[in-house]
């Protein structure tokens, strides 16, 4: 795989997933468990970034892995070193489908679920793990275009390398690097504009330095 500045380098923990995929495609349950362990949380994080609902994000993750099981079992995937881009393309499509479905039918939420979720958020905020900065960042992400947001979320939630990101989005590596850089710059600009509109001396600790 081509080395890209700033891209993760395979370290001592690097795992060759090809034999795992081969075993999984033959129905080996241990291999399947390994695949789920390696990727389920990343797929979940990607879905959660967009859906903001852990139950729905988990449903999406399950759906993605069910699709994976069906396609791998049927020989629908030929290993060419592009498993992760392929997997996250499935995940992105599934998330997009769910968002479209939700736009068509405004999905009502169970008040009990909302209360529970808000409770968890409040508890986390008090622990300092979900700070004001993160909430502002989420808001700023919502201001980005769909394309910019997808690049950032695949990179940071999906943890794809730039090369994998380029393969997943079917774009040249150079274009993808430029897109990612521009998307981060836009995000920073949105946050700085929001900061500039705030009264001076209030909440300045949340400001991002350029």
């Amino acid at each position, binding site marked *: 795989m081509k080395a890209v500045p700033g891209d993760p380098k395979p370290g001592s923990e690097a795992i060759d997933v090809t034999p795992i995929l081969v075993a999984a495609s033959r129905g080996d349950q241990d291999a399947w468990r390994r695949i789920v362990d390696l990727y*389920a949380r990343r797929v979940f994080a990607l879905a959660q*970034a967009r859906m903001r609902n852990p139950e729905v994000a988990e449903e999406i993750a399950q759906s993605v*892995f069910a699709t994976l099981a069906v396609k791998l079992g049927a020989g629908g995937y030929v290993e060419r070193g592009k498993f992760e881009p392929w997997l996250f393309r499935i995940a992105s499509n599934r998330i997009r489908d769910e968002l479209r479905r939700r736009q068509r039918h405004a999905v009502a939420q169970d008040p009990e679920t909302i209360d529970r979720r808000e409770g968890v958020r409040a508890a986390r905020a008090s622990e300092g793990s979900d700070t004001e900065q993160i909430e502002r960042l989420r808001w700023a992400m919502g201001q980005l275009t769909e394309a910019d947001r997808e690049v950032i979320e695949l990179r940071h939630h999906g943890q794809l390398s730039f090369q994998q990101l380029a393969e997943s989005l079917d774009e040249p590596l150079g274009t993808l690097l430029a897109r990612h850089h521009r998307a981060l710059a836009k995000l920073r600009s949105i946050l700085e504009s929001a900061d500039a509109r705030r009264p001076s001396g209030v909440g300045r600790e949340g400001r991002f330095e350029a």
Partner: protein
Amino acid sequence: MTHNNRDMTFPEEHGENREMSELLARMARGDADSARETDSASGRTLEDRVFASTVSMVGRPEVVATIGASRSLVRVWRVAAVIGLVALGGVFYNIAISRSSSPASPTTPTKSVAKASAEDVEFVLAAVSLLDEPLGGSLDDAISDATKLRDTVGSDRTFSSEPAEDKPSKQGV
């Protein structure tokens, strides 16, 4: 191909985007950790639940084959139904035109052709039903035969006056 187990840590971006990348990494960690919100009372993790839902699909390619086959069959039937409906619509349209046009009223050449075609089709169908035989060959051949037959019926000639090689008898078949 390798999977780099980064444990939700991210590479450093260069320059001014580095701080933003670190913040995004924190957000991503928070989103990944929110899976704990749906942890069941039995203490099963997200991975346990995803694996449990996936394992029933593992090693069952016939599921895909069945779904694929049934879907393609449905598609074929849909296409056939659409073609059938269009053909039926065409027949009704021709019948409607042929009935609505009065013999005394002047007709355009197009209508004449349509009327003639409709008559041909009706004639073929009538002849086939009389013969009680399935229609073989192409429709063009059948229409051509029907035209000959109509000309024969319309003329003073009898069936027996047709050359034997042009009009083989169906009675002996």
